[in-house]
């Protein structure tokens, strides 16, 4: 495999979606190769021997792993279009902090919502909403986390939006009722072609989650 850009990915992965959005923002043509995570390909294992996970971005035959590392790489290499990280070092550090917060908190707290029941699930929902409210606080009255322009933190967080419907169904709650500002932000992002094209259909995600629950033996 020489030249060009390849993305090893899995359609419902929020992490893969981040990279799809970044590539679309920069209008980069790439080859998308869907991976079967129950039966990992030699290519995946060769390109990400350390974690054996998707997404893997391959540029000129060389792999880059970890979605936020990939987004930063894309932003640096294709720097003349649609900058994602701000130029100012303090604003960059702030953007990295919040993207890191999304990484530390969103996946785990979201997973706990659909994996648990009863009191445990109530606690998980509370934690999940709590994290979203902190993000709402950071967004403030801005159009995007990047300020006036769509940026790094927006890319890091918006893929989770297509999982909200699945979380709501499993947890029997409404995220919009609790975090209306955040949902307004997500809808605003969805008006961008790069986001709309990259996020999975929420109904399909819910269907996938139901299959996953069966596989885990969760009702």
């Amino acid at each position: 495999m020489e030249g060009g850009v390849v993305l090893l990915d899995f359609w419902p992965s929020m992490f893969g979606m981040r990279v799809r959005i970044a590539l679309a923002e920069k209008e980069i043509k790439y080859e998308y190769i869907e991976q079967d995570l129950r039966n990992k390909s030699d290519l995946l294992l060769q390109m990400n021997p350390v974690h054996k996970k998707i997404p893997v971005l391959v540029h000129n035959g060389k792999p880059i792993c970890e979605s936020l590392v990939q987004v930063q790489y894309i932003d640096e290499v294709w720097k003349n279009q649609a900058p994602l990280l701000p130029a100012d070092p303090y604003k960059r550090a702030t953007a990295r902090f919040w993207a890191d917060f999304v990484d530390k908190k969103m996946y785990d707290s979201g997973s706990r919502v659909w994996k648990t029941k009863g009191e445990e699930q109530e606690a998980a929902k509370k934690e999940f909403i709590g994290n979203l409210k902190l993000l709402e606080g950071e967004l403030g009255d801005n159009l995007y986390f990047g300020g006036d322009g769509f940026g790094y933190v927006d890319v890091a967080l918006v893929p989770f939006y297509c999982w909200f419907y699945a979380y709501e169904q499993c947890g029997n709650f409404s995220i919009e009722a609790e975090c209306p500002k955040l949902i307004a932000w997500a809808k605003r992002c969805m008006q961008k072609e790069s986001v709309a094209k990259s996020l999975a259909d929420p109904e399909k995600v819910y269907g996938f989650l139901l299959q996953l629950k069966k596989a885990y033996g969760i009702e």
Partner: protein
Amino acid sequence: MSKAGLVLLDCWVSPFCMRVKIALNEKGLQYEARPEDLFGGKSDLLLNSNPIYKKVPVFLHDGKPLCESSIIVAYIDETWSSPPLLPSCSYARAQARFWADYIDKKVVFDACGNIWRSKGEVPVEAKTEFIEILKQLEGALGDKEYFNGDTFGFVDIVAIPLTCWFFALEKIGGFSVAAECPKFSSWMKRCLQRESVAKVMPDPEKVYEFVLMFRKMQGID
């Protein structure tokens, strides 16, 4: 720049704080390190500067707070460009960020915790996992002097502070890093010869005393 412009909310035994201090030393910057009493009561400045996590390190640049050690080190590198800590080539930078992320991921922190927080005998799996992680890092190091190549840089700064806890892990776990991972051990010694690192890393015996005290406090010993 006056010392007052750069303040670090610090704790002597925290590897995360050490990362920031090493980076500042590498850049030849003067700073004020303010020790936080993490057991007695965190300062208002800490709680206000890091309301999300309430943890050290917090780096204040002219009063503006920055949190999360790897992010602080990247900020220091971008604000004061000499000597550079990250490589200039984008692909090499991505590799550096990947390995810093690997070291930061729970797997490394937890792997250490699984050893020093063990009640009674440390499970074999915990020791095996820890050694495998070091071997993975040895692979990344290869035959290079430092993770970057010839020059001390970002990944070295992220990794070296954790090593002052290794003596404690070895005593508690009954194993030897030097015996299992000689290349890693050589890299450690090489880094410790740098003044920026040596000035900042505590005596491993003192760290061990701290870990024993902490274990007693937590009812593990």
